[in-house]
């Protein structure tokens, strides 16, 4: 710390410009913190050499937990000794990412004492990320976090930190209480969250409506997306006002309805609600005039993930509509059945979406005791390769038409 100021000509370039600068953040931290100072140095080196300088993380963590910490070591520990260890902690954020200034200051105080002073608000899964500390600091950080009511999030083959859109807290379209469900699932699955025991990771993401502001359909093993079953609510006067205010209702609203189920005669909008696919577009464009129906709940989808290694998946419909109210028994039963089947039959590092593809959706449904319905598919199979499991034998019994296991 008494060293002369490190030169970082490359990174300095990234202090310029109008967008908030992460380099300024690191430099600010570096003023007081040697880890941040060495991070700056090593990063400058990466910028010169066009290569990262981190080694594979070893297994580090806090006592009794299998996840929540990502081990990280510099491959230039002699030059940058203060980042020779540079582990991150994943801290389970409060649902919806709401904070008070008070609690944020407490978190900062802990990280000032025990870490680099650098964070991510937030990680892609939703956690508060405490970026960089030494192995011996992990327990103290954990202790102080639990003292202020925080706990670690997931990593490894466990339930990952569930996250959600702000839902009913700040959005008129939330079809169920995303934050309540997120809190409930997080608490219900504390053990599964902290102690990896699955074939691979399992992510829950809760979005209050089909806009899916938390990208759940693209990146969660179970995506829970709010929707409704009845008619779009309409305020006719507000419709007229939108028209008056210059919104081109025919072109921009009706013309973009994917179900082609809207009609605008210049005065009134008519919606064929039986045909409406609940896409949200018309509601999005006229929030004062239209809103989701009153019979609200959610659609449960399963299996999305990033591409490694069989190609990316989007979640697909498992339960087209479910009411989601505490105690959420039906949901929990479903999740438990899925976890059981997947945990027992999944291969190592096989996400549930890949598992379903391998064993076949039909077999998967049978195993988790869910009836196949056409809502689950975009279309029926195009290939004739059906694995019939039974055939008739030629003895007397069968000519009566009795099916037998072969």
């Amino acid at each position, binding site marked *: 710390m008494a060293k002369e100021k490190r030169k970082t000509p*490359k990174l300095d*370039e*990234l202090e*310029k*410009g*109008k*967008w908030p600068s*992460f380099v300024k*953040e*690191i430099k*600010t931290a570096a003023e007081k913190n040697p880890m941040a100072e060495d991070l700056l140095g090593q*990063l400058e080196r*990466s*910028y010169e*050499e066009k*290569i*990262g300088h*981190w080694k594979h993380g070893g297994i580090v963590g806090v006592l009794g*937990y299998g996840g929540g910490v990502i081990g990280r070591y510099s491959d230039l520990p002699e030059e940058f000794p203060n980042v020779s260890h540079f582990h991150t902690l994943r*801290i*389970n954020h*409060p649902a*919806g*990412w*709401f*904070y*008070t*200034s008070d*609690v*944020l200051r407490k978190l*900062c105080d802990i990280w000032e004492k025990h870490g680099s*002073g*650098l*964070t*991510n*608000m937030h990680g*892609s899964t939703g956690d508060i990320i405490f970026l960089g500390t030494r192995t011996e600091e992990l327990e103290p950080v954990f202790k102080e976090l639990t003292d202020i*009511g925080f*706990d670690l999030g997931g990593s490894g083959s466990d339930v990952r930190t569930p996250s959600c*859109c*702000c839902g009913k*807290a700040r959005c008129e379209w939330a079809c169920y209480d995303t934050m309540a469900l997120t*809190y409930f699932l997080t608490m219900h699955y*504390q*053990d599964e969250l902290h102690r990896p025991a699955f074939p691979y990771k399992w992510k829950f993401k809760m979005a209050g409506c*089909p*806009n899916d502001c938390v990208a759940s359909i*693209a990146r969660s093993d179970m995506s829970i*997306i709010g929707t409704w079953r009845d008619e779009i609510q309409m305020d006719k006067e507000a419709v007229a006002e939108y028209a008056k205010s210059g919104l081109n209702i025919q072109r*921009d609203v009706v013309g*973009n309805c*994917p179900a082609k189920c809207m009609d605008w005669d210049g005065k009134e909008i008519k919606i064929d609600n039986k045909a409406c696919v609940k896409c*949200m577009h018309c509601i*999005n464009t006229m929030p*004062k005039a239209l809103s989701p129906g009153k019979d609200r709940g959610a659609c449960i989808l399963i299996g999305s993930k990033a591409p*490694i*290694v069989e*190609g*990316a998946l*989007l979640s697909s419909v498992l339960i087209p509509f479910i009411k989601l109210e505490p105690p959420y028994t039906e949901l929990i039963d479903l999740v438990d059945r899925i976890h059981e089947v997947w945990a027992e039959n999944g291969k190592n590092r096989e996400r549930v979406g890949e598992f379903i593809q391998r064993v076949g959706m039909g077999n998967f449904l049978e195993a988790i005791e869910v009836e196949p319905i056409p809502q689950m598919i975009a279309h029926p199979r195009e290939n004739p390769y059906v694995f019939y499991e039974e055939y008739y034998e030629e003895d007397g019994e069968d000519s009566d038409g009795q099916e037998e296991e072969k």
Partner: protein
Amino acid sequence: MAEEKQKRVTDIGPPHYEKFLPPVIKENYGKWKYHEILKPGVMVHVSESGANLYTVRASSSRLLSIDKIRKYADLADKYCDGYLRFTSRNNVEFLLTDKSKIDPLIQDLQVLGHPVGGMGNSISNIVHTQGWVHCHSAATDASGIVKSVMDELIEYFTEMKLPSKIRIALACCLNMCGAVHCSDIAILGIHRRPPKVDKSRLKAMCEIPSVVASCPTAAIKPATYEGNPSVEVIEERCMFCANCYTVCPAMPLNDPLNDGVSIWVGGKVSNARSEPMFSKLAIPFIPNNPPRWPEVVGAVKNLVEVWAKNAKPYERMGEWINRIGWPRFFEMTGIPFQKEHIDDFKHAGLTFKRSVHLTY
């Protein structure tokens, strides 16, 4: 207190969110009637009760010092009784009830270096990952590219002059933390050189059967190196996925000459209008050029602007391309079409043009 210290507390989960909700939200939870975007970065939610909640959304670098977080806290105290939140795209939102405080807050945020915007038909923050700041897997940096791109596109963040929302995301390797695979524009770090096996140390560091099994293309086979068990990579079969490296540190793919960035377009997540879509390959490879990756910045800007100029209102990138067709997309953006654009993975056949619906 002394005994409490002894007891190690675990599995308490996160604090209940209710503790952090401002009174106006607690009172109107689930009662919001509609919202309106008042100007860039500022919206109001109106409750059935008549209550108003103003949200001011400010940009953030996501990688934040505790110093900056404390400054956010100070602003929250000054303008909104200490309440604030972060968004699913890592912006920070201040939650006000007093309309007159909006402009002073914006002023202070501007001074702090956090322009306000990202709402409505704009570019919001770029979802991104660790890059060279923290990950061993990275084929490029994350924060540096994000900063460079957003510096260039800032006007689309602070104003609302685009046909619709546009979501940009960055992942520094094929693991794609951040799910960039469904973004209007995705910037993806890629390796292009097969793993350099650390032959002598492999045995000590990794389990050979799991290394062999990790490869989706069966490019890895057991081999002996100086009498020791090791592995060998059949280079023609390698598709640079780095799955072997994830399971075995002795298989690094990082390589300054061959790592770089690819650009993908036309994905979306929302169900609005069209169904969610994956992003598709637009530019197979741009070499890493720190600190400001000018070629990447230029490519993204070009994509944004060609789309902005030609899309109809509410038309996301992918919806626009679906309307005009990929041949026109390549023509209008000036991106050369190459062999690499044509899928040759599992479902390749389904991505071929299987009709004569063509324009000339």
